[in-house]
């Protein structure tokens, strides 16, 4: 009796803590969403409360006058291209590092680790000088190449630890059947590794959607600007109209939020199996 009572009281504490953490996570979002639904006067008079009346028109206005359509398209292309590039370069590399034993492997893992310590500001200017020679500034393709290079070290480290956990027998069976190393990877390992791949895809698309400094520097024309840079411009333009800023900010974050909502279960699964142990 005593024991159950005690555990139920700690249970309450546990639930309370969980709930409290959830409120902490949601409170700023509540502020943002409620601000985006208020009229300007309502927002000024009553910054933290619920809206008196729902001003959904803020969203329409933000989307229209903010010219977010093109920006959405650009961001989607950037994310898709980057994900594709990571799938084609970083994931095979992680596979080789995990499954083809070479002395140089630990050196390469160290190299990629080192790459994560390099701040973006360190290479931006020389890189810009180089890219402009090849006509890769102002081009989404150029930016995608940069994203792939910047995000690949973390992706490789993540996926390598995932591939390490896949039994060698699988690959061997394929190799004995006469498959090439690439076929073994593509037909056998890749499908098994799907949860890990999904995790990587979510992280990479999140990073490429959210990046600010790189597109700001490398894209100079409005028609190629992604959502984050566009939002930054709107901040200056609407600096007095917080309800519009909030509406456009929420709109800008929506696609990535939906992606996460669809994939979060698998994302956590994948995270579990990589274990992120480096």
């Amino acid at each position: 009796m005593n024991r159950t009572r005690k555990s139920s009281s700690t249970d309450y504490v546990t639930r309370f803590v969980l709930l409290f953490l959830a409120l902490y996570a949601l409170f700023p979002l509540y502020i943002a969403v409620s601000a985006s639904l208020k009229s300007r006067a309502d927002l000024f008079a009553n910054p933290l409360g619920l809206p008196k009346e729902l001003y959904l028109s803020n969203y329409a206005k933000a989307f229209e006058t903010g010219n977010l359509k093109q920006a959405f398209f650009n961001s989607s292309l950037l994310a898709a291209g980057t994900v594709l590039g990571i799938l084609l370069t970083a994931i095979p590399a992680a596979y080789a590092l995990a499954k083809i034993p070479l002395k140089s492997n630990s050196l390469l893992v160290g190299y990629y680790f080192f790459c994560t310590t390099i701040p973006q500001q360190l290479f931006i200017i020389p890189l810009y000088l180089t890219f402009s020679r090849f006509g890769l500034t102002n081009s989404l393709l150029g930016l995608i190449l940069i994203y792939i290079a910047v995000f690949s070290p973390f992706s490789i480290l993540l996926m390598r630890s995932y591939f390490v956990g896949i039994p060698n027998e699988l690959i061997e069976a394929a190799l004995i059947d006469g498959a090439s190393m690439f076929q073994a990877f593509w037909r056998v390992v890749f499908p098994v590794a799907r949860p890990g791949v999904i995790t990587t895809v979510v992280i990479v698309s999140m990073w490429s959607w959210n990046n600010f400094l790189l597109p700001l520097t490398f894209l100079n024309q409005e028609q190629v600007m992604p959502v984050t840079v566009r939002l930054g411009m709107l901040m200056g333009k609407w600096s007095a109209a917080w309800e519009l800023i909030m509406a456009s900010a929420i709109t800008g974050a929506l696609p990535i939020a939906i992606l996460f909502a669809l994939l979060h279960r698998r994302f956590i699964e994948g995270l579990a199996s990589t274990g992120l142990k480096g």
Partner: protein
Amino acid sequence: MLPPLTRNMRKLKKSKKWVAAFPFLAPALILNIGIIMLPSMATVFLAFFEWSGLDIPQFVGIRNFVTVFADPLFLKSLTHNIVWTAIFITVPVAMGLAGAELLRRTRKELFQPIYFFPVILPVVVIGLIWRYIYHPTRGLGKVFGVSPLGQPSTALYAIAFANIWAWWGFLCAVFYSATQSISKDLYEAVKLDGATGWQEFRYITLPQIAPTLIFMEVMTIIWSFQVFDWIWVTTQGGPAGSTELLATLLYKKAFYAYKMGEASAIGVLISLFGFAGVGLYYYLSQKGMEV
């Protein structure tokens, strides 16, 4: 450290392994070296020159490093980075651990995506939301009469608080998923011995997820020295330099003060701090192996 060899692969000759590995490794490596390593090395090179960004660079040896270290603002920024690192290797990690452990125990997985949600939002967006929340005449300030971002004594902590909000959910997800691969039997065993919840955490969860924990701590150290976006969208290093960090100082040196050489020197130092973090990681994981 190398993964277990497959029997087939072990039999292959070294040269053959190279042939097999090359197409897998080359594309990523070539992109990475071309886009990150070579330009970074160019900047490291630049750290030994005086260059306004618009004139011809002049070789000055290690003078830029000497100037940087003699600059009180550099030392101030470095201190801020250290404070920042100290906050981030403890507070969000503790929150993440607590969240993960409680989730593991209660299996209330519903909370998981809620905690994680702030992580996925762009910094441009959440920086704005927090600027609004902290606003002295609109958000909290209007209600409570405070201005957390306006006071030099609180600004850094106010930004850290906001950044923790957007970050701890990631740690929680990582730790939680790490606990999922711990054998249930272990917990059953200690439960039979009458272990308390704390003991379960202390003697089972913590040691079992230690590798993940160490990895995340090291990544935290590395990232803490690179923080830029958060500061830039909220305070730009002010008020009174109270939120100046190495990365914002680098930016100002490069673009406001026309000192590309000094900026590069700071960039090199940021990398070195991160590199020290990696070294620490290897040291800790070696030590972990021995135990």
